[in-house]
């Protein structure tokens, strides 16, 4: 197979210039059925929370000012006026699901990105630079040893009002929660990445790159990071679920978003009180969270496979 004589005319046809890696990745991603379905579902959820409010124009925080009317519309089952029913204050569940999803997904994605970024940064630096290893890993141990919930509570206590007054309640709380979740969840990722980097660093191709004179920065970007992509992907997809759940726990403790501000976690916890009478109200946010997490997991799975050239093309 080495030297098949090729006529010059054919040569141009066969000889494609090096393709961008991302086209190969996309081609492979398309062959992963689960990932495609997950991708579709995720797009659907995004469209639901972003474009939904344009179509479904009831405000998620609208409470009928007429008390009698309000009491009549409490805890309704699915009707044409309220396809997903109403909650204990007569607010429309569909609108609340849309508004809540926007916040939950935004928190999940941003907090996950932050924690993955921090974890990868610490992991790569600790694994690659021997001098930093000790101090960074002790820092990781320190964070792992911290009791997270009290820490989160203290962070929220200290910074919520300051941030809220400067950036507005919504943005301030959002940044605070994203920051708090990101800063307290990067440790696992850092440990996994450090381990992988330590193993990779001894591989001959890294030595080969050093013999070329590749400086550490490009060595990490070109040789180390692409090869630790798989564990990072897994940590990332699991991280989204974690972030959504942590946000809801914070909201439940009254330290996240304000009580009237819908998020999926908030809806879930509000509905828990009425679990016996109206179980359907737990199911909607539950399904939404599960679907998001599941679809992201599948996307991560497909992406991980697509990024690995050894699996690609099978």
């Amino acid at each position: 197979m080495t030297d098949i004589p090729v006529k010059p005319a054919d040569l141009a046809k066969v000889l494609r210039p090096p393709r961008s890696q991302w086209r190969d990745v996309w081609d492979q991603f398309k062959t992963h059925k689960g990932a495609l379905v997950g991708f579709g579902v995720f797009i659907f959820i995004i469209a639901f929370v972003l474009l939904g409010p344009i179509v479904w124009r009831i405000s998620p925080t609208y409470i009928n000012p007429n008390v009698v009317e309000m009491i009549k519309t409490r805890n309704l089952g699915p009707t044409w006026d309220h396809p997903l029913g109403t909650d204990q204050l007569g607010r429309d569940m569909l609108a609340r699901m849309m508004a809540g999803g926007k916040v939950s997904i935004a928190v999940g994605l941003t907090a996950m990105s932050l924690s993955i970024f921090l974890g990868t940064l610490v992991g790569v630096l600790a694994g690659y630079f021997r001098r930093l290893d000790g101090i960074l890993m002790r820092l990781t141990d320190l964070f792992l040893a911290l009791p997270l919930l009290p820490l989160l509570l203290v962070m929220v206590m200290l910074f919520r009002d300051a941030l809220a007054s400067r950036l507005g309640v919504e943005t301030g709380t959002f940044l605070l929660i994203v920051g708090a979740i990101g800063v307290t969840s990067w440790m696992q990722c850092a440990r996994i990445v450090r381990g992988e980097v330590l193993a990779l660093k001894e591989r001959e191709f890294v030595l080969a790159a050093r013999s070329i004179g590749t400086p550490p920065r490009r060595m990490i970007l070109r040789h180390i990071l692409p090869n630790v992509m798989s564990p990072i992907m897994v940590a990332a997809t699991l991280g989204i679920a974690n972030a959504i759940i942590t946000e809801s726990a914070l909201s439940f403790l009254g330290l996240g978003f304000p009580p009237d501000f819908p998020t999926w976690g908030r809806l879930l916890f509000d509905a828990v009180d009425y679990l016996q009478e109206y179980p359907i109200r737990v199911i909607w946010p539950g399904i939404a969270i599960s679907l998001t997490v599941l679809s992201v997991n599948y996307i991560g799975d497909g992406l991980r496979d697509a990024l690995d050239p050894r699996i690609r093309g099978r």
Partner: protein
Amino acid sequence: MLDATPKAAAKTLVSVRGLKMYFPIHTGLLRRHTGDVKAVDDISFDILEGETLGLVGESGCGKSTAGRALIRLYDITGGSVKINGVEIGQAEQSVLRPMRPTMQMVFQDPQASLNPRMTLASIIGEPLEEHTKLSKVEKLARIYELMDAVGLNRTFANRYPHEFSGGQRQRIGIARALALNPKFIVCDEPIAALDVSIQAQVVNLLEELQDRLGLTYLFISHDLSMVRHIADRVAVMYLGKVVELSPRDEIYADPLHPYTEALLSAVPEPDPSLENTRERIILKGDVPSPANPPDGCNFCTRCPKVMDICRKVEPQFIEVMPGRFVACHLHGQTNQTTNQKPAG
């Protein structure tokens, strides 16, 4: 004294003096530094421009470490390495970077030495990316040129290392080493991981490239017949030290050091009638640990011709005949009286 080689006319490209590469051993609860694995212990040699120096020895004797330390993939413990007249022994990696194009390396395991996530074109293109300012088109042209030079089909440019056979992967490694027009290439057992039919292809390719591009090789191998085929001079290593360095024909015809003798006696003879008369010298015992080498000559524990002095005095590496260096008390009588160890 090492400079007086028969090919004195040729310029010395690589000059190694007292190269030491120790790996520290840390033991105990406090990880205290309790000793060193002396992987390479005070070796000196020269490589002339355009020649191939074979470096042979049994596994674990420090050949690969010597090769890697030579082009400063490790931070060496001591000694001096001059390549093309520039001292690189103690230079910082960032200072070495502009020097890298002159010295390149071909690795032992072609599978492990190629990044599995990069295409062939990007692997060969990496040195160009690092050290040249070629445009995309020029770079691609150079990559194709290199692929032609090592006999890889141009259509393979978009493939990944796992799609190639071992021999092809080694060609990729060679193409990468050639990309910057190096003067000096360390070939670290480039054929050890290949099967015999491919070995010949790769060695012939290396020789052809040497003729064409005027390359200088340090050819590390444990395959003595292959070294005989490719090398101009041969250095024999034992336990971190070079015990003998001679021109190829002389060393194969008349080995001076008892270890070289034993090593060469292990090479099979293709002629069956001669094979029966071949006398194998079987060495007794194991190689001592490089963390705790014996007193005197490193080889004294296994040497069939051991003398009392060997257990006390370390033999010096001296020129006993023109162009032939050996570290053994059997040769170079002058050394026995001096009774001093070389520095280090």
